């Protein structure tokens, strides 16, 4: 199938061969851990000791680091600059001209960045090593509603097409003299001739899609058989439950400690 815009990088690795739900359980538990673990350094520790080795095992380390940096850096920069420099009533530790970096602000920025790093990287690990359609099939096998699966898979497939359409309309309007550079007001005026044609043309083929789906018995109830077989094992099943069981434990630990 067409990959759509997913980040998935195909590799021949143990991580890729794991069942999608195993990787999803890991991401979910790490998400809970991000909020439950105490102290600013625990998130960085988890990133270094758990996520980086897994990415290396999955042979996706360069892409992983690139995606993580791209997503986390804007937040890190804003956090350290804004909360570091502008923490009201904070105790200054360093001076940058007339401005000072406050200790509380830096501590906060450190903790927040660590949390964002952990959340973002655990889901990126999932996205880079798991085919989205296989993930949806795995979920559907466990009782996830097929209508939701349909929505997610179709969206992933058609987004690049719509992005292409948006670009095409932009080029066409520009070649007709539409001003898209310059002052804010001019750029705002460009909105209408860009957005309205895109949306109108997209909506009108919905009717055809609906008819095509109904012709393929989409609305029929009952389980659907999938062509894809997902390798799973007893060991992985046990591992999944173990990982998920960690989540409430971490929550309790976080509240108690």
């Amino acid at each position, binding site marked *: 199938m067409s990959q759509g815009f997913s980040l998935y990088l195909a590799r021949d690795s143990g991580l890729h061969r794991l069942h999608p739900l195993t990787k999803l359980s890991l991401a979910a538990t790490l998400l809970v851990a991000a909020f439950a673990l105490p102290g600013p350094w625990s998130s960085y520790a988890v990133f270094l000791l758990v996520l980086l080795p897994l990415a290396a095992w999955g042979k996706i380390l360069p892409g992983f680091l690139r995606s993580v940096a791209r997503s986390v850096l804007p937040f890190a920069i804003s956090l350290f600059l804004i909360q570091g420099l502008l923490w009201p009533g904070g105790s200054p530790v360093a001076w940058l001209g007339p401005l000072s970096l406050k200790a509380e602000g830096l501590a906060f920025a450190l903790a927040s960045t660590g949390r964002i790093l952990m959340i973002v990287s655990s889901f990126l690990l999932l996205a880079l090593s798991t085919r989205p359609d296989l993930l949806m099939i795995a979920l559907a096998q466990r009782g996830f509603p097929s209508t939701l699966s349909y929505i997610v898979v179709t969206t992933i497939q058609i987004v690049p097409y719509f992005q292409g359409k948006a670009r095409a309309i932009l080029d066409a309007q520009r070649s007709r003299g539409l001003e898209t550079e310059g002052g804010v007001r001019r750029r705002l005026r460009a909105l209408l001739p860009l957005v309205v044609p895109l*949306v109108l043309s997209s909506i009108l083929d919905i009717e055809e*899609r609906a008819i095509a789906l109904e012709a393929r018995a989409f609305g029929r109830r009952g389980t659907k058989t999938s062509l894809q077989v997902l390798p799973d094992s007893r060991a992985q099943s046990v591992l999944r439950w173990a990982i998920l069981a960690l989540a409430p434990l971490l929550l309790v630990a976080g509240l108690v400690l």
Partner: protein
Amino acid sequence: MARMRQDFGTLTLVMIPVAIAINIAVGQLIYSLKIPLYLDSIGTVLVGVLAGPWAGALTGLLANLIWGLSGLNVAYAPFAAVAAVIGLMAGLFGEGGWLRRWWKVILAGLLTGLVAAAISAPISAYVFGGVTGSGQDVLVAMFRGMGLGILPASFGQGVTSDPLDKMVTYLLVWLIVRGLPSRFKARFPRAGGVV
């Protein structure tokens, strides 16, 4: 319950991925044109207006989760609840016939923007430490510089950007709905509010 099944007929189901794709395509286009708006909820509002509050809420929820968890723009995922509320409100406004008068359209956008800002602020403060990782952080810096706490600064940023963004969104949806042929609109479960 029967209404809900009607709302989620095949036509609605087919429209939701298209609406989500519209959210993402327009959102990214606006970003690349450096226009100071988000315009990432046009599809959500459209589904809400044409197919009801629940369909709108689902569209918003899934749009943000897909946009975020796919890695395209991770910041969106935690705000899925906000997007769901935007879709829900759009459905309620549609039902109430608010899209029949242009001034009610603008008012609907304003109200949606205020509610969105109110719900987003705690999420932004707790998950992202009060920053957005984008140009909007200039506003956050301004409010923090005035001595506001993290949550109030976040809310300040939201209240300054969201209402305008949602008003433009609603106006665009209003124009789009007016541009659709009546026979097409009539096929949707909640067409009564917009035809």
